[in-house]
């Protein structure tokens, strides 16, 4: 006899992701085994590389910072029912705002540069999100299509801008002039040398703040209520007098703005100048982070940390195990995305059955509970 029970919350939030991850790692392990290396050794290197020493941890947290912004960007739009896969382009364009402010105010103080650069980056990233939002709200274009197109437009646009306006004449490489002074985001290693040469900077704290603010926005404000209503049931939102078109545009703008924070972390935190393709796929990984984190700030924080660790530990692994190439690291990351994002429900059904069986075998008061719940449903 088969009885299915819905999973308890802890199993839903912890057990399922854990099993998905385990499967991803198990298959990755097989891949490692096939090329003649020891998976156990690989895991050791990966974990040590990500968390074992200051510099590694610094890199992990630095990558995680990007993923937090990208994941939040995805999930804010997602709560409004919009599948924004354009964080990549939004962050890219935001880099323009960040570098222009930083170059202009390079001789002031980072406390002045940072907020203004954030506003500029958010404005440009937000605009890059707003346009697809506007097209979706007013013209019915699908944001998946428009945001993909906008990633391409961003790419071409930035090449043009960098080559024609930002590249100093004496420079050969397609990149802007460097910020040297206040335009650089302060590195945490300046205060704790524990972090070695890792580029972990103050944007890490901004990311934590963004997680908290996103929670407040979505669950503690009227706007958040409207966004969630819109995402959960657009007809009900319409019935409630919530303008669907406004909410779509607002959510897409906020989403793009948050994605723009990646620009500060990378452009002003690592490169100190605007280079081509500095977003480096963080925006796309943000989709997986958002999905795996169930669009909730706590989940996103954990998922971002996981992907940060994979990025950093993976690089370490590629370095320590020459047989494991960078492409193989990508495969492992892809497996994690596949099992935690795309095939998230893989274990759900079987687990529900197992939980059902456990309850069946251990239930004496179960019948009473069922009666109570059924009568409340009746």
């Amino acid at each position, binding site marked *: *006899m*088969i*009885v*299915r*029970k*819905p999973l308890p919350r802890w199993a839903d939030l912890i057990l399922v992701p854990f099993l998905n991850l385990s499967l991803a790692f198990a298959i990755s392990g097989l891949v490692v085994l096939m090329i003649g290396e020891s998976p156990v050794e690989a895991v050791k290197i990966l974990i040590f590389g990500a968390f074992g020493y200051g510099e590694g941890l610094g890199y992990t947290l630095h990558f995680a910072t990007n993923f937090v912004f990208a994941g939040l960007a995805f999930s804010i739009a997602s709560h409004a029912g919009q599948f924004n896969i354009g964080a990549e382009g939004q962050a890219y364009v935001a880099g323009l705002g960040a570098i222009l402010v930083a170059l202009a105010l390079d001789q002031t103080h980072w406390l002045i540069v940072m907020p203004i650069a954030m506003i500029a980056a958010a404005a440009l990233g937000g605009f890059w999100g707003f346009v697809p939002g506007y097209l979706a709200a007013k013209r019915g274009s699908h944001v998946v299509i428009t945001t993909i197109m906008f990633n391409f437009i961003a790419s071409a646009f930035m090449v043009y801008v960098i080559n024609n306006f930002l590249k100093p004449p004496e420079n050969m490489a397609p990149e802007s002039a460097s910020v040297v002074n206040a335009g650089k985001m302060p590195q945490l290693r300046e205060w704790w040398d524990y972090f070695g040469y890792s580029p972990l900077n103050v944007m890490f704290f901004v990311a934590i703040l963004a997680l908290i603010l996103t929670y407040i926005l979505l669950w*503690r*404000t*009227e*706007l*958040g*209520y*409207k966004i*969630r*209503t819109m995402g*959960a*049931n657009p*007809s*009900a939102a*319409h*019935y*409630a*007098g*919530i*303008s*669907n*078109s*406004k909410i779509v545009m607002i959510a897409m703008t906020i989403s793009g703005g948050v994605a723009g924070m990646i620009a500060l972390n990378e452009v002003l935190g690592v490169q100190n100048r605007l280079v081509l393709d500095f977003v480096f796929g963080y925006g796309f990984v943000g989709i997986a982070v958002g999905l795996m984190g169930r669009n909730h700030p706590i989940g996103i924080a954990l998922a971002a940390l996981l992907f940060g660790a994979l990025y950093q530990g993976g690089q370490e692994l590629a370095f320590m195990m020459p047989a494991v190439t960078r492409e193989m690291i990508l495969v492992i990351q892809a497996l994690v995305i596949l099992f935690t994002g795309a095939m998230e429900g893989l274990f759900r059904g079987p687990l529900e059955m197992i939980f*059902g069986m456990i309850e069946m075998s251990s239930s004496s008061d179960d019948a009473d509970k*069922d*009666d109570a*719940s*059924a*009568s*409340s*449903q*009746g």
Partner: protein
Amino acid sequence: MTDKSQANEQRPDSAAASQIAPALAIELSGINKHFGPVHANKDIDLKVARGSVHGIVGENGAGKTTLMSILYGFYTADSGEIRVGGKQVTINDSSHALELGIGMVHQHFMLVDNFTVLENIILGAEDSSLLQPSLDKARKVLAQLADEYELNVDPDALIEDLSVGAQQRVEILKALYRGADILILDEPTGVLTPSEADHLFRVLETLRAQGKTILLITHKLREIMAITDEVSVMRQGAMVKTLQTKDTDPAELAELMVGRRVLLRVDKGESVPGDVKLAVEDFVVKDDMGITRVKGINFEVRAGEIVGIAGVSGNGQSDMLEAISGMRKAASGKLLVKGQEIIIDGDDGAAKMRDMGVAHVPEDRQEQGLVVTFEQWENAILGYQDDDAYGEGVFLSIPAARAEANEHIKKFDIRPANNRLKVANFSGGNQQKIVLAREMSRDPDVLIVGQPTRGVDIGAIEFIHNQIVAMRDAGKAVLLVSVELDEIRSLADRILVMFDGHIVGEADPATATESELGLLMAGVSNDDVSVSNGASVSNQENVALKASDEKSAERNMQGESK
């Protein structure tokens, strides 16, 4: 019993079959089904005699549809046994059910709108990769079936051009074409005019006479009394009792369904109409496709009265409701609230109407009135989220919203009394109470109510009706739109009948008969009704069928599918 033996004599083939097969068409024992925490079917036993019409009644959420879906292979039971024709079977999907001779006519038709009747009939039952042989065969079988069962449909008509009644006949034909011996009909009369329903019942009687077994799921007790041989009552997922229809009466069934005595009519005093609170003038509304649904209507609703809009679903009521509640811009005409003209522009017009003191209980609570994935307290402020009572400025005060939700739970006896429960986990009746509580608690001047008791159990219907009357007695202007004629007749102080986007007549609920209203609903205007009674009986049906077939067909369907 005589019926059944006759049936067997008439059909030698089925008689031969039933010599080996036992008298029971279906036997279910110990069926259990859970959905999450909901125990939807509890140890259900059911025996259905071959060649009978077996009714299954129960409140919404009693588990009728779940049980039938298990029989049809839509769901798999968690435990229990199914016997079809005496043989134990496991039904994994609907094609398997069909092989066993079980066909289902769903509440919402499963037809492809822009296919012809024939194409729909053979859909999924094609004999080969070439369609033509199947189509030819289907055409022959269809003609035969049409003769045998009074199931007349033009095989080459597009589904979207057919009336709802005709579409339902196509569904029945589909099942018969696939060799169904046992037909399950889920709330078949919900979308039909009274005369279409009569036609359906004649078809069912013919089917029974030919030895088919029919399972009829409904919440309308009158239909049970009219057509069934036996009736099983379900309550809260359990099978309460199975009775011979001739030995029971509606009052007993209602009591069994609800578990206590039920008042089947509304107690209300005379209305004392006051000032005009809501009025529409030459009101024209178009739907999303740009099709005119409401074609210039005029009416007013005064304080302290309930104006009921009757009509078959899909004759413009939904679009009218949306326009009056601010969700849709009227194409032309005026909308006046308390004498003030309201212009709707933008897609947040509903907020404007709420500000004017117009509360709206929408027709479809799950689609519009609620966010079912939200908790009850979050739904308690839906539409009023900007109100300072639930947090000033940009913030939302969760304690204030929860307090409001608890207030609703207390006043409207919403169960379970847990404001943290997701609305999807409440029963239909309690969901409706959540909406009503929200809309009635804010002391509106005008209350617009669409289908207040659709999918609501009898116990809750009584409560909801009393609440609506209480609003009227408190001096509110109430506009009630319902496809349940009984509901309109018992609640409304004035009845307006809507057909094809027009108000085709006004009636006094105290004096209007059901057949008068039925005729109006079918588009026959007041003047035409005054034919002598004897002559009009057959006439009435023809006119009604014809009118609804031709005129309301498209609208009906589009109204429904929206």
